[in-house]
């Protein structure tokens, strides 16, 4: 019985080794971790349709610890609280662009990536969006990943109506990455 167990263990180890050779050791040993990045509040009370924030992942310790070992970004989600202080329904889009800040809506739509669309908030209401629900609004996943991999990027909120008066608070970016667990 002991001999059989030893043989079985050896065969199992050989099978795992064979898999590591076929697929690469990194593939067999990888796992998924969730990284959270805080983003500054948007406080937009303006007659302009454009609001901008910078996100710098080089200052995120979790991202820096993991980035050399990342095989892929598997999931991008977010959470936030949006308050509409105006008398009309608020709607808009979230765009992102790599390093250089864009200053006009035309430039953003030419050089940026549409990330979120379809969120509406009724007048005087606060809408809370959490990780799971955020996927209902995510667009252009692969293009968004390319911008995130650039590590330093700009986030733009483009309102569909002017004037608008919204506050977007408690924003967190939630990413699942595959790498060394």
């Amino acid at each position, binding site marked *: 019985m002991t001999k059989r167990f030893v043989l079985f263990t050896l065969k199992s180890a050989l099978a795992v080794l064979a898999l590591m050779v076929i697929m690469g050791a990194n593939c067999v040993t990888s796992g998924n971790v969730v990284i959270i990045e805080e983003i500054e509040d948007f406080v937009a009370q303006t007659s302009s349709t454009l609001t901008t924030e910078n996100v710098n992942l080089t200052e995120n310790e979790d991202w820096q610890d993991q980035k050399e070992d*990342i095989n892929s970004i*598997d999931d991008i989600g977010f*959470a936030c609280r949006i308050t509409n202080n105006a008398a009309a329904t608020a709607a808009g889009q979230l765009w992102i662009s790599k390093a250089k800040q864009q200053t006009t809506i035309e430039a953003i739509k030419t050089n940026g990536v549409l990330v979120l669309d379809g969120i509406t908030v009724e007048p005087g209401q606060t809408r809370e969006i959490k*990780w799971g629900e955020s996927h209902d609004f995510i667009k252009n996943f692969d293009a968004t990943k390319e911008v995130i991999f650039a590590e330093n990027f700009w986030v733009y909120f483009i309102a569909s109506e002017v004037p608008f008066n919204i506050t977007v608070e408690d924003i967190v970016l939630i990413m699942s990455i595959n790498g060394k667990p």
Partner: protein
Amino acid sequence: MNLRNAVVLLLFVVLVVAPQADAYRFSVGAFGGLNIPVAQEDAESGTAYGIKARLPLTGFIAVEPNYTYLKNGDGEVLVDVNGWDETMTNEGGTFNSFGVDLLIGSVLGYQGFGAYGIVGLSTAKFERNGLPSNSNGSYWLGLGFEYAFNDQISLEMRGKAIIFPYDDSTNPFSSDKGSRKNGLLTVGVNYYFGFTQ
């Protein structure tokens, strides 16, 4: 030849060769049980079920074309920054896998106890709400234990693992493949046709 083509070719070979070889006895079965994502913070344990047919090629080797559905439980993450202090959830995702397993051991399913090792290939699709689906060739490994009440009906218990490899073409830091790995603990029933002892 990529893995997906290999799986399709293997399925074709099974369907053509097996009936002419030792398909004097074959079975159909269904199974279900627990699906355990391994090292995945964005998914929790869920369910697994599927159907399969077993075609013995010899007395100790059989092939099993199969369909397996895995549903991960919702992933959970504690968000305790920037005004939040709560555990948020997200759909864990599902796998649909079509493949062929090679069984080595007691595979004929005659009355009594049998055990076998399992290696397999499949083409699998991983899907999650709001995100692009991901289809890839996958690898399976496992062990099965079967008790046949008579020469027609058996109960089985299996431990299997799927390795679902993939890479990310947008990643500038690495071209290495990663993978999702799920362990399955399932119980199944088989019904055998053909010769009896």
